[in-house]
């Protein structure tokens, strides 16, 4: 079953159109990747889903058209977006950040458990639990953003370069944990990632964007087998 | 001005700007918004009411035999000198004379220009003596008594007292407060039964004068001379002194002594005596409830002055009187020129304008004095005021 489907989606910032027609689909419990050069439109595609750019085309989630919703309404459907850059609440403590992530939930106990889970996953955050998020190091903030998204128990996770600024081992841990989430809780995910080596350990398939269009879509195995992909993204 | 002083100077009766055979336009610049909008609004309402009523009857008769309607063009200056000057610039070539505006700095801002342009700036509401100095201000004339006079009147009354008095003074930190204090002090000079025990100031922008009242209360004075022009602060002072159980006799200026708007909410009945000076009947006072002048005035204010409530500020009454005084001057004008108008205006003697208290009158020919310089000292009787001759 398809969970998320983009059909010929366009998007623009003010008068500047940057997506010229992007199509992709993420199956229930699936993981799909988006690759592309800087400026190709990866981030914009995720923003189109979470309703933070002006869009055209069709975006359906769970069979329903979600275009025209507000960002928080999209989130309420169970789509959690880990944005590019610092997506944390600088003046809130690490714990408060996590609590905000769980805003849509009301199961007190579950929330506390999940906070513990996240702190387990990111020992750095455990150490800085009471600090303001703005004091954290770049990588720690990235961890916090991912953790906050996990706190909302989403059905679909949008990850925009979640490994950005993470140490190699930490990046790996994060991806391991996300993979675990996928198998344990059945979360689906749409992943933008420059580190294609890492991304390919997670996703089943991916699309390559170029100037706001899909130029190539395939399964992980297919893509890995293509020379030009290896050259451009895998450094092989 | 481009006329280079031609405004009123044109010899031989060519009409000045702002006047035709059947109408004359007067300009007002006064605060209609901002902190002083309360009294400011009144300055327009009274004169508008006066001439509104006259116009409804056909107009005002001029000395040249013509009957003219009187239009008022009022602009808001928010008590900003610069804006007042701008308003003047805007009006000067369209109006016959400027009148009734409230405020010292706002009137001073264009005084020089009015002199240079030879535009009358008359019957304005400031107690600044400069405007009544004919030498310095040939095209000006104040209306209300200079602040010094008001302070003096009370000082003179106090000097007649047979008892010993200790006086505490609180005054607004500007020419208003200074004028009052100066007049008061000059009147009690030499009176050895009077001692000033403490003297403080406050800013018109203060939110509270509690500290001053507390400090003055500790002086043990039995007379409190409070030269204050801000209504809420006056009410608060009356309340605060009671709260401190300090019960002196008070002196209040003419514009902050309204029985309904200040004394009643302030709980003035608790004090042995509340004195003020006035030359106008207070419409709220029961003594004048049936007074013909007052009834006519209140009706006109509502109908022509666009002022529905009974006024809380005496400025409404004053500007009504300004209307009457102007009419008086118009009646003496033989030529439709500003110069002729100034002449006529300066020659009014003992004119008992409507709403004027017995014993006061408009006198425009007195050197160095505004149109009104006579005042009655009054004492609060629980409802309104009675004129008094001696302290106690």
């Amino acid at each position, binding site marked *: 079953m398809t969970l998320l489907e983009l059909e010929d989606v366009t998007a623009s*910032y003010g008068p*500047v159109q940057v997506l010229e027609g992007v199509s992709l689909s993420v199956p229930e419990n699936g993981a799909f990747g988006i*690759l*592309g*050069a*800087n*400026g*190709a439109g990866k*981030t914009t595609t995720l923003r189109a889903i979470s309703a933070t750019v002006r869009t055209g085309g069709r975006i359906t989630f769970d069979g329903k058209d979600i275009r025209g919703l507000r960002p928080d309404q999209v989130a309420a459907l169970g789509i959690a977006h880990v944005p*590019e*850059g*610092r997506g944390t609440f600088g003046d809130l403590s690490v714990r408060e950040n996590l609590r905000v992530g769980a805003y849509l939930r009301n199961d007190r106990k579950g929330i506390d458990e999940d906070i513990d889970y996240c702190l387990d996953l990111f020992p*750095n955050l455990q*150490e*800085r639990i009471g600090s303001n998020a703005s*004091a*954290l*190091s*770049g*990588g*720690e903030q*990235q*961890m916090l953003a991912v953790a906050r998204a996990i706190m909302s128990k989403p059905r679909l996770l949008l990850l925009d*370069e979640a490994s*950005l*600024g*993470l*140490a*190699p*081992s*930490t*990046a*790996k*841990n994060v991806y391991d944990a996300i993979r675990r989430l996928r198998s344990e809780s059945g979360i689906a995910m749409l992943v933008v990632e*420059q580190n*294609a*080596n890492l991304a390919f350990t997670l996703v089943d398939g991916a699309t390559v964007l170029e100037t706001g269009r899909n130029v190539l879509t395939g399964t992980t195995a297919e893509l890995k087998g293509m020379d030009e992909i290896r*050259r*451009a*993204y*895998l*450094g092989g | 001005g481009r006329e280079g002083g031609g405004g009123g100077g044109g010899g031989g009766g060519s009409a000045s700007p702002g006047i035709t055979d059947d109408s004359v336009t007067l300009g007002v610049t006064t605060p209609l918004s901002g902190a002083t909008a309360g009294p400011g609004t009144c300055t327009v309402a009274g004169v508008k009411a006066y001439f509104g009523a006259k116009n409804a009857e056909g107009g005002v008769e001029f000395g040249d035999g013509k009957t003219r309607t009187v239009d008022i063009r009022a602009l808001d200056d928010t008590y900003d000198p610069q804006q007042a000057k701008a308003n003047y610039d805007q009006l000067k070539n369209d109006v016959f004379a400027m009148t009734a505006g409230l405020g010292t700095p706002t009137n001073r801002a264009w005084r020089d220009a009015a002199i240079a342009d030879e535009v009358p700036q008359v019957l304005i509401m400031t107690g600044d003596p400069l405007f009544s100095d004919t030498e310095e201000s040939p095209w000006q004339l104040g209306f209300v008594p200079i602040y010094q006079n008001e302070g003096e009147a009370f000082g003179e009354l106090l000097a007649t007292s047979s008892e010993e008095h200790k006086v505490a003074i609180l005054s607004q930190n500007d020419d208003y407060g200074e004028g009052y204090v100066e007049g008061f002090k000059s009147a009690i000079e030499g009176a050895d039964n009077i001692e000033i025990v403490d003297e403080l100031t406050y800013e018109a922008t203060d939110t509270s004068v509690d500290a001053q009242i507390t400090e003055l209360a500790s002086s043990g004075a039995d007379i409190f001379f409070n030269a204050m022009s801000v209504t809420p602060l006056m009410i608060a002072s009356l309340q605060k002194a009671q709260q401190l159980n300090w019960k002196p006799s008070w002196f209040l200026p003419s514009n902050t002594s309204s029985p309904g708007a200040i004394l009643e909410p302030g709980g003035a009945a608790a004090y042995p005596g509340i004195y003020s000076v006035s030359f106008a009947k207070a419409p709220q006072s029961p003594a004048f409830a049936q007074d013909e002048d007052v009834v006519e005035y209140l009706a006109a204010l509502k109908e022509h002055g666009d002022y529905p409530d009974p006024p809380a500020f005496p400025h409404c009454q004053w500007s009504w009187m300004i209307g009457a005084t102007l009419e008086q001057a118009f009646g003496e004008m033989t030529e439709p020129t500003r110069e002729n108008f100034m002449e006529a205006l300066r020659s009014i003697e003992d004119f008992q304008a409507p709403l004027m208290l017995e014993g006061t009158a408009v006198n425009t020919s007195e050197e160095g004095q505004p149109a009104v310089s006579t005042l009655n000292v009054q004492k609060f009787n629980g409802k309104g005021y009675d004129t008094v001759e001696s302290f106690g």
Partner: protein
Amino acid sequence: MAAELTLQDVSLQFGGIKVLQEVSFTVEPGQIFGLVGPNGAGKTSLFNCISGHYKPTSGVVRIDGAEVQGARPATLAGHGLARTFQHPALQLHETVLENVLLGAHSRLPGGALEWAVRTPRTRRAEKELRAEALELLERNDLGWAAHLPADELSHGLHKGVELCRALLMKPKLLLLDEPAAGLPHTEVETLIATVRRLRAEDDITVVIVEHHMGLIAALTDRVVVLDHGAKLMEGSAAEAQSDPRVIEAYIGKDAADDAA
């Protein structure tokens, strides 16, 4: 002249948190020096101590032999230190060119009055540096974006603009904080080439913080590994990558396998 950088027992504390603990090392003039370590190890903080944005709690920082700890960032910048930021900080509403020109500040002569009356000297200098900035952008494949507002560029390209801005300062010592983050593979290779060329042409010392081990391995002459604010080891990139402590604390077992 490329600068020499020496740190001697540099420590930094915020409240109770020990961010840096007695870190010492020396960067020789002309070296490309790597600084790696897990998240929160104190790499950026160390940069801040060098560039004057943080004042070390104790210890000595020397640039070309002069003690500079506690000096103001602006002073240090005036003496040939340039840096980029981990999180790119551009003037988003200004054009890319204006952003880059900011790097020319100290190289432009004249006081406020001279600029207000536009003396020929200031006009000439502005013109020259504008041309230089354009050329710099061109060389970094960003020439096409020179006149676009920075916020119309995608995130990944901001890094490049920041680098150009720092380069226009003509520094003797350049600190790069995760320059490769968010770049696709091909761009990382371009970056490596750029830094190499820099050293060759401009006689400059470079310190790089980076999690991209490929870049570190390809580029650096020497690396220091930080962990929890303390120096874990110092050596060549290859030594670091095979050091078990480093693998344990930083690279991760599997990742090390992958890279191998």
